[in-house]
């Protein structure tokens, strides 16, 4: 077996640290953008008011009337602040934009760190819990940036980057694992397919978790507004699309995540289990939880087609599904004895 390139490992660790710091900076800037939402909204309102003003001046100047007094404090309807299809409307959010730029930098450093770790060990860089988390965080951040190129999902930045930073920190604190070769049970081409699909699925579920939580918050706000509440509440939510828009987008991503979960953990997992352990399904704890998560998300997809179960209840199912994923990862891997003893944790 080829030796591990320790020099490359050191570079990998350095870049992982850099990525973590830059992510943290991006997270903080997204948070600042969130806090400054009301300022952003006021600016947009002022711009819109100014536009209206010039238009009216043009109209009224002909009639020789004095321009009517404009009310710049008038609330701009939310449709003008966000697009339901999450298209870019040209709202300037400098802090968020710098945060996005930093995220790009961080993802580049992170990608280098993950790739060099894999090259150093001459295998896929997701063979233990530390690597699973760091690779997962990379995919979450990369998918988020990918979506950002098409859609204005800057409103998700604080949540996504927060989750990414959490994943990086818990990998380092909870599951620090030195680079090493993998044990014979993991030496199979299936590790590349099975685990990468699991990472993809979990990354998508992570993003939809953030969206579904926002959906619930947004729904409460919409209810309050419909009930005639004049309380302006959390200004940030005015820059977030409507609950139903969030729900639809979360559904589309969950559908993709569900396919990944079916093919990855479930089907290729069973195929690999047959090859390594002799049976395709044996209700090992990890298999149980893979099944539970699959059923919960299947329930979510069905809830979308059941009267009285759309909207908030479906969102809760998606959130519960993500809770099961976290439980499966953080609790089942560590505390439940089973065949998936790959965690690389000290006994």
């Amino acid at each position: 077996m080829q030796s591990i390139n320790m020099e490359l490992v050191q570079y990998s660790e350095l870049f992982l640290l850099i990525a973590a710091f830059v992510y943290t900076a991006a997270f903080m800037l997204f948070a600042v953008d969130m806090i400054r939402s009301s300022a952003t909204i006021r600016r947009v309102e002022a711009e819109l008011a100014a536009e209206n003003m010039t238009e009216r001046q043009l109209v009224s100047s002909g009639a020789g009337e004095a321009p009517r007094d404009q009310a710049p404090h008038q609330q701009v309807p939310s449709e003008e602040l966000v697009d339901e299809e999450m298209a870019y409307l040209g709202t300037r959010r400098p802090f968020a934009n710098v945060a996005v730029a930093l995220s790009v930098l961080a993802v580049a450093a992170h990608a280098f760190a993950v790739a060099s770790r894999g090259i150093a060990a001459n295998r896929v860089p997701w063979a233990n819990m530390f690597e699973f988390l760091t690779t997962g965080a990379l995919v979450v951040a990369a998918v988020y940036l990918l979506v950002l190129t098409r859609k204005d999902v800057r409103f998700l930045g604080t949540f996504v980057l927060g989750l990414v930073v959490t994943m990086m920190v818990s990998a380092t604190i909870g599951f620090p694992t030195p680079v090493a070769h993998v044990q014979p049970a993991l030496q199979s081409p299936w590790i590349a397919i099975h685990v990468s699909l699991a990472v993809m699925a979990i990354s998508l579920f992570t993003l939809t978790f953030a969206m579904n939580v926002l959906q619930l918050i947004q729904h409460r706000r919409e209810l309050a507004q419909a009930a005639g509440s004049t309380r302006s509440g959390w200004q940030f939510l005015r820059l977030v699309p409507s609950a139903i828009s969030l729900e639809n987008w979360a559904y589309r991503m969950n559908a993709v995540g569900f396919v990944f979960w079916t093919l990855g953990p479930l089907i290729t997992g069973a195929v690999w289990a047959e090859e390594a352990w002799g049976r395709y399904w044996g209700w090992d704890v990890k298999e149980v939880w893979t099944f539970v998560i699959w059923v919960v998300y299947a329930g979510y997809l069905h809830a979308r087609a059941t009267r009285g179960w759309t909207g908030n209840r479906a969102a809760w199912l998606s959130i519960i599904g993500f809770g099961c994923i976290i439980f499966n990862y953080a609790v089942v891997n560590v505390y439940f004895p089973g065949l998936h003893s790959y965690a690389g944790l000290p006994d």
Partner: protein
Amino acid sequence: MAEKRENTYLPAGHRDAPEAAGSTDAPAGSSRAEVTPPALGVRGMLRWAWTQLTSMRTALMLLLMLAVAAVPGSIFPQRVQDPFSVDAWIEDNPGVGEVLDFLQFFDVYSSVWFSAIYLLLFISLIGCILPRAKKHWQLMTSPPPRTPRRLERLPEFGALELQSTAAGDPEDGPKAQQALQDAAGILKARRYRVEVRDAAATDGAEASGSGDSAGSAGSVGAERGYLKESGNLVFHVALVGVLICVALGSMFSYRGQKILVEDEGFVNALVAYDSFHPGAYFSEDQLQPFSVQLDDFERVFDRESATNFGQPLDFTADVTTQLGPEGEPQSQELKVNQPLTLDDARVFLVGNGYAPEITVRDGAGDVAFSGPVVTRPDDPVYTSMAVIKAPDAQPEQLGFVGLLLPTAQDTGEGLSVSVDPELGNPQLQLNSYYGDLGLDEGNPQNVYVLDTEGLEVLNSRDEEAGGIVLSEGETYELPEGMGSISFDGVRDYIAIDVHYNPAQQGVLFFALTALTGLILSLFLRRRRAWVTVETTPAGRTLVRYGLLARGEDFRLRDENIALRAQFEKKWPVRAPEEDS
């Protein structure tokens, strides 16, 4: 976005699938009343029960219950995996253990309640897909639905007025009939199933407010994405297929475990197994008479890494296999993740360890036991549990319990531990006992456990004689003239599993079919389109079109835009008049 929800097409076979626009947003409580059983006869009750069972809400509830019911199987030890831990759990938790055992918490996946949930779920599923399949078949074999009266009320709608000048200008738009054919062609190219209807068949559209029914040239009805519903049905049918294959597999499969010490052979026959788990309909002639012999076993450990020194990197067993007594012996490699396929059975390498060769002589000097003793490794450095039973020893039966240390190192306190998994300095540390080992009554005993109760201690660290410490090639004389024990050498052993499951290819086939169906049903778009063409009183050709989505479709607007672009490319379209 609210319109989107209205047009959401939902599985029609489910009786509580929302049909009316906006009903999806009705609060959950509003339909509770439906659930009250009406006062009906037995048939009525059965019909009602069937309706309830096959409803979407019930299916969803059963799904969620299945998820919850699966969880205890990960919390409590399960008999299918480890019957010994189940017994230990019940012993450690008297009272609770028995109750949970009665409630089948240690056999969750074959329990009455778990089976009830998934069987009900599958009955509900079948009851749901049968009417859906019928309805889908009817739709597939019939033309696209009738053209609605008011296309402008559809979620996506557009109208184009084509250029027309009186004098046969080459810039002229096509006449109404030609436009209709063009529209049909465009829709067909966009992979719609298309039907062109003449004005008489388009009576619905005729009545649409234009007032000039004579001007209608007919309409086009089109639908695409039938595969979405087909995929959905295939997905659910394939799940039934998976379940059937799983059931077949558990009936006709078998699995068995065998430990093979170096140079030992194994013939696939019932008596040869250490443990054997047949399916319900297993018969002994299913066992193909192949044989496997372990010639050599090699372990590779990490010798470079500072952090993972001694971690296993590779296990390779060189085996000789033979298919039947007349078969040609074949040398093969058996590794983790690389099982052997012999006849229809699969042979897996699931464990390995050391088997020290021991000779026990009794007080009379006769050999009471001689051979390799399979030890059970308990940690990464292969500190292995050894149990030796010599019931033939005279005058007293002898038993030994202790450890094999592959590379023993003195800790400085008179105690040795193993520091490496390879055989650097193999050492046996044993306690010895004499008395009745309890083997004579014929009760089955675990060969890896010596019940020391009722035995007299000969050697142990607490005794005057001390424990037995043996290096390779050494012999120890037992106290009180009870005999001697020699450590002659160490051989390797492997643990193999033999599995036979004739239905597992079927499970894989149906799982992949289900996946294909799932992808089709989730990502295909099912749409209907209608185009009407009429000649306006001004003599121009007016084309209207409308789009309707069935099921989740977030890109209906894009379809509208694409369709309009194609129409505009095909025909010279009049700019909309400013003042009208």
